[in-house]
């Protein structure tokens, strides 16, 4: 097992290095082709009054007058040394911006993943168990509609119901506007809506998958065998059928990480959550290349690592792969 696993990890890492290089090259090429002038951006309103000589000196200072390849290698070199540059819109080092915000993003995403797994497993199993009933039809119908609904719209509905009409939960932010310190209970209260919306928006495909997979598993011989031996229906459903129905689901979960990042971008924006995903929108609005490039690289790395973890989990979970090796 460990050899198969090690081989897979080595292969993936070997693929990741050229991938990240290609991503940096692509981003840099796009930025070079971009009509935005970083000097004008840096100067802002002062661009009108700054003399061309000074602007030219800044340009020289930043190395913008050198060949593109040289600039790229320079940028790449500082990336490798861990220097991500300075955010042009927030006027702070990119490392600090990410360091401040990554934790909040991980908190919401991790919370949403837990909620999503629990709910879609339970509700999906319920729908499969009671298939073709009105309950099943209601669940699958909602899941289908949810799949088609944009998450920013679902988020607004949630705000309207729970923050505007019922006044149970705050509509956004990390803490109350008047709060001077970050208190855990306050954060927890502000977290409920973003986590719930992200989990809900991501859960429908999983729920439908669990239902479908479980229904076809319930038709298999080993389930009939378990029934014939007089096992309780609940035992059959959870101990026998669900276990076998869930195997492909580990890989699927890994494949959904890009969607999770997408969801996080939108949800953090709607709820003004101070995470990295929502920051990418601010960076984009300001055409802030260093910050946006760092965040894109970070997301790509997250996807690659997530896929690797999912595949590793599959090797560990499926005894056939474990014994016979990765096909």
């Amino acid at each position: 097992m460990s050899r198969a696993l090690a081989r897979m990890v080595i292969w993936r890492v070997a693929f990741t290095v050229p991938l990240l290089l290609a991503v940096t090259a692509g981003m840099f090429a796009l930025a070079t082709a971009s009509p935005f002038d970083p000097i004008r951006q840096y100067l802002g309103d002062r661009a009108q009054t700054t003399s061309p000589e000074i602007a030219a000196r800044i340009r020289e200072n930043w190395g913008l007058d050198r060949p593109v390849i040289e600039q790229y290698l320079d940028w790449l070199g500082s990336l490798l040394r861990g220097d991500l540059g300075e955010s042009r819109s927030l006027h702070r080092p990119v490392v600090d911006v990410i360091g401040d915000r990554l934790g909040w993003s991980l908190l919401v995403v991790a919370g949403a993943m837990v909620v999503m797994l629990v709910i879609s497993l339970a509700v999906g199993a319920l729908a499969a168990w009671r298939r073709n009933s009105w309950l099943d039809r209601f669940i699958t119908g909602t899941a289908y509609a949810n799949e088609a609904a944009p998450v920013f719209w679902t988020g607004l509905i949630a705000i309207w119901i729970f923050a505007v009409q019922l006044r149970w939960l705050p509509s956004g932010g990390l803490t109350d506007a008047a709060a001077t310190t970050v208190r855990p209970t306050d954060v927890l209260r502000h977290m409920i809506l973003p986590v719930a919306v992200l989990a809900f928006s991501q859960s429908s495909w999983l729920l439908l998958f669990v239902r479908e997979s479980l229904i076809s598993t319930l038709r298999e011989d080993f389930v009939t065998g378990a029934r014939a031996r007089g096992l309780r229906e609940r035992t059959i459903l959870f101990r026998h059928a669900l276990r076998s129905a869930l195997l492909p689901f580990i890989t699927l979960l890994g494949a959904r990480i890009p969607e999770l990042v997408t969801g996080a971008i939108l949800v953090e924006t709607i709820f003004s959550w101070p995470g990295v995903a929502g920051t990418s929108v601010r960076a984009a609005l300001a055409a802030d290349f260093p910050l946006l490039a760092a965040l894109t690289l970070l997301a790509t790395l997250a996807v690659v690592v997530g896929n690797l973890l999912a595949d590793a989990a599959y090797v560990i979970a499926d005894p056939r792969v474990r014994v016979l090796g990765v096909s």
Partner: protein
Amino acid sequence: MFQTAPGRKRGRSARLAAGTLIVFGLAVLVVPFVARLDQHLVDLTATSLSPRPAHPFGTDEMGRDVLLRAVYGLRVSLLVGLVAALVSVTIGTLVGLVSGALGGIADRIIMRVVDGLNSIPHLLLGIFIVAMLTPSVGAVIVSVALTHWTTTARIIRSEVLALRSRPFVDAAISGGSGRLRIVRRHFLPHLSPQVALAAVLMMPHAIWHETALSFLGLGLPPHLASLGNMINDGSRSLLAGNWWASLVPGLFILLPTLAISALTQHWRDRTSPRERSELQL
């Protein structure tokens, strides 16, 4: 003809979906002839009115009729979505054809590039592209098209690989056909249904991306009535209780998307009943 109960239900939901699409299609085509929308016109005497007979879905904070703007917004979104879907399916088909027809090392490299591009979250890559271009309709189309061709490329490549081993291809090669001729005369005609289906399935996705970018303020120009812009504008007055300005345009995204996915599901069930899913609506 004998039909089981689920089969009848399937037919009913397909008819419902087709009806929904026809209603939206007619609205988009006919309404501009009946009622014109001045994109810049605001009416400050009628701001944030709740739904009433004169304004069935109310007015927004600038006093503009939500229903009329939503119809125009759907028009814009459909157009942008259509162009973006066509461009991305064209790129995907070309790449898939080249990859499948060349095979060998070229195929491997192209497929690794596709894998690599898929590792970047689509919306983030789209945001990056839009941020680096000047904001315009063209930037949105480029951003959506460049991030979405990979799915089509994968499908077309695997179809080409399956076609390559068919006897008629061997026959064509024996008859002296070159690679280009085989692609043009034998692969493309066989692939056209797949390409068409890919384009249809890409539409809702492209619309989703356009609205998401516009919602984030990175897409279409803000004065233009587009569904994403409307939801974005409306979200500001949502806290004051005006639900209609942002929630109604969302329905204009949700219902057509739902209808298209129901119809493709129906089509798949009919053409390949062996893979019929357990899902019923």
